[in-house]
Every structure is written in C-alpha cells, then in structure tokens.
C-alpha cells in the first residue's frame, strides 16, 4: 500500500460521485482539446496549401476571394481573365514560374481544374495509380475524389457545369481517368486535375453555334487565374502594384491574405477557447466540491491517520494524489474523446472543407490540456488539503459526537 494505490482507492470509494466529476472534467478538457486541435489543423492546412505560391493573379475583385478560390478552392473565383494577358506576365523579368488555373466545372461537387503539370509538381503530388494526363479530356483524380466517387483509372465521367453540385452535364465531352493521386493532405486531394485545354474544349464547343463562332471563341480564350512564383522575394514590393495599376487584373499575395484570414478566424477561436476554459473551470469547481465533501465526510478517517502517526503533509499529499488521479483519468478520457472526434470529423463535414481537418495529431498547444488538468487538481485539492492539515483530532476523541 503506497500513496498512489491508497489515494486511488480513496478516490473511487464513492464511485458514482467520482465518475460524475471525472466525466464533467473530461468533457471540459475534451472541448478545449478539440478547439486547440481544430485551430491548429486549420492553420496548418491553410499554410501548407499556400506553399510556393507568391502571388495569385486573376480578375479584379476581392483579393481574399481570389486566394480562397485559386489556392484553397473554397470560394468561387471573381471572374476570368484573358489568356493573352496572363501569358504576357510569363515573360515578366520577376516571374520565375506561372501556372494557369481554369475553373468552371465539377464532378460530384469536386472541382475540375484545368492547369499544367506544374500545378501538382508544386505540391510534390505523387500518383497512386495510372499516369499523368497526356492530352485534353484526360483527368487525374485527387485521393479524396477517387474515394468519394469510386472512379478508377480507365473510367469515364461527365463534368457538371458550375462549381457546386447540380449544374447541367456536359454530355458530349466525357473525361477519362488516367491517374489517381495518393493522399497528400493538401488541397489536391479534393480536386480533379486536367489540361487547361480540356476546359476550353468543353465550353467552346458547348457554347459555339457554328464554326465561325468557335474560331472567335478560340481567339478570346480565358483562364480563371494564374499562380506565380517570383524570381526574388524583392518582387513582392513592386510586382503586385504593377499588375494592379497597369492591367485589368489584380494580384493578391496569399501570405498576406492568409494572415488576414487567420486574424478573422482568430477572433472566433478566442471566443471558443474562452468557452472551453470556462467549461474546465466549472468542472474544476465540481472536483473541488467533491474533494471538500470527501474531506468533510472523512474527517474522522483523516484524524485516525494522524493518530496512526501520519504527519499533516502526508494527509495533504494523500488528498492531492486523489485529485491528481481524478484529473489524470479525466485527461485521458477527454483527450481520447477529442482525438476520436477529430478523426471522425471529416466524415461529417461537407467535402469542400473536409480537407482542412483530418487524422489524430498532437500539436504542441495540446500540452495545455494535461497541464490545465494538473492545475485544476492542485487548485481543487489546495483548500481540502489545508483542511486536512488542520484536522482536529478532537473529532476522533470526543466520544459524544
């Protein structure tokens, strides 16, 4: 019988109240853990998807919208821009790489992105099966898309017009799947990649009424936006300004817009975190009341321990260990709950945002949870421990009480 086993026995000597307290604390800690993990996951996902992209050029409008549409594929793009204008930027001395992105269609809610092979290369995407597209109307599916639609290499599918589900199908132009990407935990997981020419082919023949019309449309070819990598970081100073003033397009820097977005998200996250801390404090109070109650009920027990030779510090240690036991059980429960929830969350979320949260993680901030639980235990045990310090042996001796 040592301090740990003894305090364990005492902590569970009244199982119902112990369990209620543990559950309450576990819920509070779990809620806090979910908030911390979700926040970290979203931030990480947002930062990862921006990798290597210095600036996004697209139609004029909200810069944040352009980033959300072009980098994260969450929002609709502000509009299209002329291919000629974009191609003109390719020869700009400060541009190291330019990747065109054309949006407009979807399959089962997943966006079909017309681009070049530079785009998957940007994320270091690997093929799980098949090969990259060689010609228009060949498509490579992101892992999540393949999983959700059940499409495999060699299958055919029709794109739907628009970026959400429910557009009219482009019946004459089926895509053929040539490859499936392996899961990369980035935005490509939920995209369908194809050659830029595919998007043109689908829309031009759909819209053109005769040969002449088709030729006119081909002359006015557009892309939705372009992802650009600079030759030198110094370009960030002049390049966007140049684009914004000298062309009919706008340039938006993802890093800047991301910071802005996180700041906006941050306010909400702070409220949630405050809520989580409040939950934990409420449960701290209940653990405190449980311990205080236990000390009152066990006053004679504790006095008996004093009589048997235990010093006041030993009794205080006993109560502290009891509180720590309850807190550790609650921490394990709360964190398992949170990890389980985070693992199950993508299944419950709309496909567009599911990529933002996934898999169990242990971000550094999560150490706050066991730390907080220990703090709660110390706090909740402090007053009862002091009470145990003052346990009056009179309670033991007064035969008439």
């Amino acid at each position, binding site marked *: 019988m*040592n301090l740990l086993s003894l305090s364990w*026995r005492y902590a569970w*000597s009244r199982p119902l109240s112990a369990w209620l307290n543990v559950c309450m604390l576990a819920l509070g800690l779990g809620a806090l853990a979910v908030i911390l993990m979700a926040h970290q996951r979203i931030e990480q996902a947002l930062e990862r998807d921006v990798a290597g992209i210095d600036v996004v050029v697209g139609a004029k409008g909200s810069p944040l919208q352009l980033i959300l549409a072009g980098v994260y594929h969450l929002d609709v793009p502000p509009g299209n821009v002329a291919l000629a204008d974009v191609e003109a930027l390719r020869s700009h001395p400060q541009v190291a790489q330019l990747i065109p992105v054309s949006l407009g269609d979807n399959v089962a809610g997943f966006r079909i992105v017309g681009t070049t092979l530079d785009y998957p290369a940007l994320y270091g995407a690997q093929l799980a099966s098949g090969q990259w597209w060689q010609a228009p109307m060949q498509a490579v599916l992101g892992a999540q898309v393949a999983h959700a639609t059940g499409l495999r290499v060699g299958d055919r599918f029709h794109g739907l017009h628009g970026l959400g589900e429910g557009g009219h199908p482009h019946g004459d132009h089926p895509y053929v799947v040539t490859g499936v990407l392996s899961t990369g935990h980035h935005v490509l997981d939920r995209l369908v990649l194809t050659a830029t020419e595919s998007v043109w082919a689908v829309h031009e023949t759909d819209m053109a009424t005769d040969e002449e019309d088709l030729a006119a449309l081909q002359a006015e070819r557009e892309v939705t936006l372009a992802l650009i990598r600079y030759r030198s970081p110094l370009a960030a100073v002049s390049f966007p300004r140049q684009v914004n003033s000298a062309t009919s397009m706008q340039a938006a820097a993802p890093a800047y817009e991301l910071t802005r977005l996180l700041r906006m998200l941050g306010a909400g996250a702070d409220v949630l975190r405050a809520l989580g801390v409040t939950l934990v404090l409420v449960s701290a109070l209940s653990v405190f009341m449980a311990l205080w109650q236990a000390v009152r009920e066990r006053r004679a027990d504790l006095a008996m321990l004093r009589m048997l030779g235990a010093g006041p510090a030993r009794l205080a240690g006993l109560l502290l260990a009891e509180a720590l036991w309850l807190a550790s059980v609650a921490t394990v429960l709360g964190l398992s709950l949170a990890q389980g929830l985070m693992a199950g969350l993508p299944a419950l979320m709309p496909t567009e945002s599911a990529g933002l949260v996934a898999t169990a993680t242990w971000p550094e901030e999560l150490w706050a949870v066991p730390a907080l639980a220990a703090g709660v235990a110390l706090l909740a045990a402090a007053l009862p421990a002091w009470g145990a310090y003052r346990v009056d042996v009179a309670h033991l001796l007064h035969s008439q009480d």
Partner: protein
Amino acid sequence: MIETRSLVAAFRGGTPIVFPDVAVPQGGTLLLRGPSGSGKSTWLAVVAGLLAPVSGQVVVAGTPLLERGARLDAWRARHVGFLPQKLHLSPALTVAQNLALVYWASGLRPDPLRMQATLDALGVSGLADRLPQALSGGQAQRVALARAVLLSPSVLLADEPTASLDDESAQAALALLQQTATTVGATLVLATHDARAVHAVHAACSVAQSAGGSAQDVIEMTLQRMN
C-alpha cells in the same frame, strides 16, 4: 509508563483544565473516569502527543512530551496504540488494508507476517479480505484493536470501549483489551463514563490475579465536569 505532574491543558479556544497528577507504571492499567466534557479527550490528546500542554510535565514511555510536530508524529506511530469509540475503520479499505494503513501512516515497511499474526491472536484472521461494513460489531472492534496493537505500542489508549455494548459483551471486550495489553506489554488507559466498565475492569483484574497472572492493580483517575 505515563507520568503527569501539574498538567494544565486546553483544547483550541477552550478553558484550560487542571489535571490531577498520575503515575502509571509500564504494563499497568489506568481507568480514566468522568462524565462527558470533563476533559477525558483533552487528557488523551496530550498523552497521545497531539496536544501540547499549557503547563506541567508529561512523560509517556520515557519521552517528555512538550511540543507537537513531525517528531511526535513518528513517536506516536511507534509508541501509542489507539482504539477510538467509533473504531474508524476506513470503509474504502479491506481489513488487511486497514491494517496496512498503520505502516503507510508511520512510513514503515509493511510486514504481512506480523499483520497475519496479530489478526490470528485476536481470532479474526479469516476476515482479512472483508470490508469493515461486512463485519459484526464485535469483529470490527477486534480488527480495530489489532490495528491499535500492530506495532506493539508502549501505551494503548481506549476511548469508551464499552459504550455501545451490552453487559456481557462489555465484560468480554474489557477482558480482551487487558489481555491484549498484557501480551504486548502496553500500559492500558481506559477512558469511560460507563459505571459497568469500572466494575468489569476490577472484576477482570481480580480474575487475572487469582489465576496467578502478574497483572498490576488498576489505577483510577476521576475527572469532574468543569462548569
């Protein structure tokens, strides 16, 4: 042995009580009589080293008790056995664990053989795995007594050991107490306001003496209610 001289003591905030001098030899029996509120508890607390006297001298088992503190906690564990009226066996622990608590409280290494032997001597060895709630009153008192004498204390303090017992059980309980105290060589203090206990103790003592035992005379100290 227990010796007090000009002892004055007071519980926290209470009026100081002046106690008569007493000298009990090692192995002797002290009958501490008096109604509720006459200071029996205060006297027991002083002798157990839980309460520092206001003035006067107290020597228990050769140790003068002047201050409280960690040193006295360790001393108490080693030298004072205590049988409270309500027994105070921990309901969260089995009989064996309640005994093991003695070692935990005193910081000593548990001695399972000794625990077994002590339970054996009191005839309750078969109950080691029971919870206190599953014991009869008499069994619980024997277990509590086993806990009190586990470390062979020099002094065994029993607070109202007969209060809730009928005449027959009271006599048996007192006989057991005296016999156990004699076995471990402890000085026995019986604090009681029960007149039956007083007769029973004398009776048990004369039985022991007539049987050729070496039991010493019973010393009596009677306290009066203060107000």
